[in-house]
């Protein structure tokens, strides 16, 4: 009796997962077919799900060869890598101080950082632009990187907060008895313990930087420093646009994200066993 009830429940869950898989994979399938089509097929209202009638493979070669997409891709990798590393470092320290250290202003600092997820970025575009101008760092790598790091921090602070909170106090006490200094304790004991949290927040920091368009359009003056999304959008013409090429560019831009996600979420998945060992 009991077993068959379990079986039904399991079947239901797998059925649900299957249906959901179909729904979630559909946009990606659509984007891929889109990237092989011509405008007349993409915008044909009667043909949503079909495969391309003619496979326009050249969309991909054009996307890769036209302009300097490869250079922009490398730039994007660079921006994203630095943003992820620096913002995670700074934000994890802030989050640790807010959640584990004893000081008066922590409530205020936490509130200030939470402002970061509330600001409508379009409105800060001009003030930030003027600020970067005044600081003399507008137009180079730094002028885009600093805003990226800044706007990646609040989310990381908030996500990691929950993970720091969940740590038992005994860990720090044990470290203290061993005579560990605070930096050693933080970097060698605490941070490794919240690996799933760090991996998760890195995923989002990466994603936000990788797909960002508004800042990248406005804070960069020189083609040398442009990012991949800006490069893809440059295929939009004044009067006519070959959207298949843009689709191809987006497929190319999506692949690294999926790769990074696979890598980082593996860290989250494995954390269970890590936890068990340390426990």
């Amino acid at each position, binding site marked *: 009796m009991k077993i068959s009830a379990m079986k039904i429940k399991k079947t239901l869950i797998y059925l649900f997962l299957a249906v959901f898989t179909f729904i*979630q994979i559909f*946009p990606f399938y659509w984007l891929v077919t889109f990237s092989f089509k011509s405008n007349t097929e993409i915008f044909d209202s009667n043909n949503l799900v079909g495969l391309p009638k003619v496979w326009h493979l050249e969309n991909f070669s054009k996307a890769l060869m036209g302009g300097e997409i490869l250079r922009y891709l490398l730039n994007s990798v660079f921006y994203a890598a630095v943003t992820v590393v620096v913002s995670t470092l700074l934000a994890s320290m802030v989050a640790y101080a807010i959640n584990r250290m004893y*000081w008066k202003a922590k409530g205020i600092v936490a509130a200030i950082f939470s402002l970061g997820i509330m600001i*409508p970025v379009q409105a800060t575009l001009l003030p930030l632009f003027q*600020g970067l101008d005044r600081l003399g760092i507008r137009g180079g790598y730094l002028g885009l990187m600093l805003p990226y790091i800044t706007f990646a921090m609040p989310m990381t602070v908030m*996500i990691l907060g929950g993970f720091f909170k969940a740590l038992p106090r005994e860990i720090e006490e044990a470290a203290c008895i061993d005579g560990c200094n605070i930096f050693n304790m933080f970097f060698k004991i605490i941070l490794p313990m919240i690996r799933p949290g760090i991996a998760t927040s890195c995923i989002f920091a990466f994603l936000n930087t990788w797909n960002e368009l508004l800042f990248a359009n406005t804070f960069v003056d020189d083609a040398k420093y442009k990012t991949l999304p800006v490069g893809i959008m440059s295929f939009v013409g004044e009067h006519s646009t070959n959207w298949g090429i843009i689709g191809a560019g987006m497929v190319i831009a999506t692949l690294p*994200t999926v790769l990074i996600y696979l890598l980082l979420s593996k860290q989250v*998945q494995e954390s269970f066993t890590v936890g068990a060992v340390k426990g």
Partner: protein
Amino acid sequence: MKKLLSNKWYVTVFVAPGLILFLVMAVIPLFTTGYYGLFNYDGIGQKVFIGLKNYKELFTTDPYFKRAVLNSFILAAGSLFIQIPIALFLAIVLANRVKGEGFYRTVFFLPVVISSMVIGQLWCKIFNSEGLLNAILGALGMANDTAWLVNPKTAYMTTVIPAIWQSIGYHMVILYAGVKNISPEYYEAAKLDGATGFKAATKITIPLLMPTIKVCATFALVGSLRVFDLVYVMTGGGPNHVSEVPATLMYDNLFVKCRYGYGSAQAFFIVFECLLFSFLLNLIFKKSEENASMI
């Protein structure tokens, strides 16, 4: 240990670098926006100080703003009560070692990775009068030629559904990591008490997950109140402004209508509104977080 963790110098070293960067790059621009909101300013010429007049217009004569705020509330409710529960369910199921866990986790996240521009285009095709939705309805014998996107009754809902759907994977990932972070000891103890499966989820996982759920709820709430991308791509606030949200109105004022001062006031309002609601959310979650610490 407490002495070590209350050392002012250490606190400064941990907090200052991040905080200073954040103050300079985010808080100062935010207050500059607030400052611009007090002016009649076209974004390029002279600024004329008009005090709180922009805010007065916002709350009294602006014909679209109230509707826009209400619209964002609808999305916020949908995100909190539909999106997060689904994400939570998926996170718990996946964290309990389903076969093919890695595959599902990746596939479920895909919509988050794809640019909103593409997602918006796709849903436009689904909701088109000759699109997928009407084709399915037709096949089910409910033939329909509604143009969902441009019908004033349905236009806003066509953006809410994709917005709720797109971020499920996003919250799933955060919650999944939270579940994974729960020490197995808790479950072992529960097992001895006979709690497994669903029971373990409600008794242990969800209470212990409360801090993470709170983070997700805050993200979902704030994300809804300042939603922009999908609405802008799909309906642009139309027809006749019925599907506007505060951020689309703000964008129009800032960059299309050249009413920079007014748009800034709207931006400042959005921040204020987000602060207020996340404060309320905090109060609601305080209780459950206390419960969590009891386990």
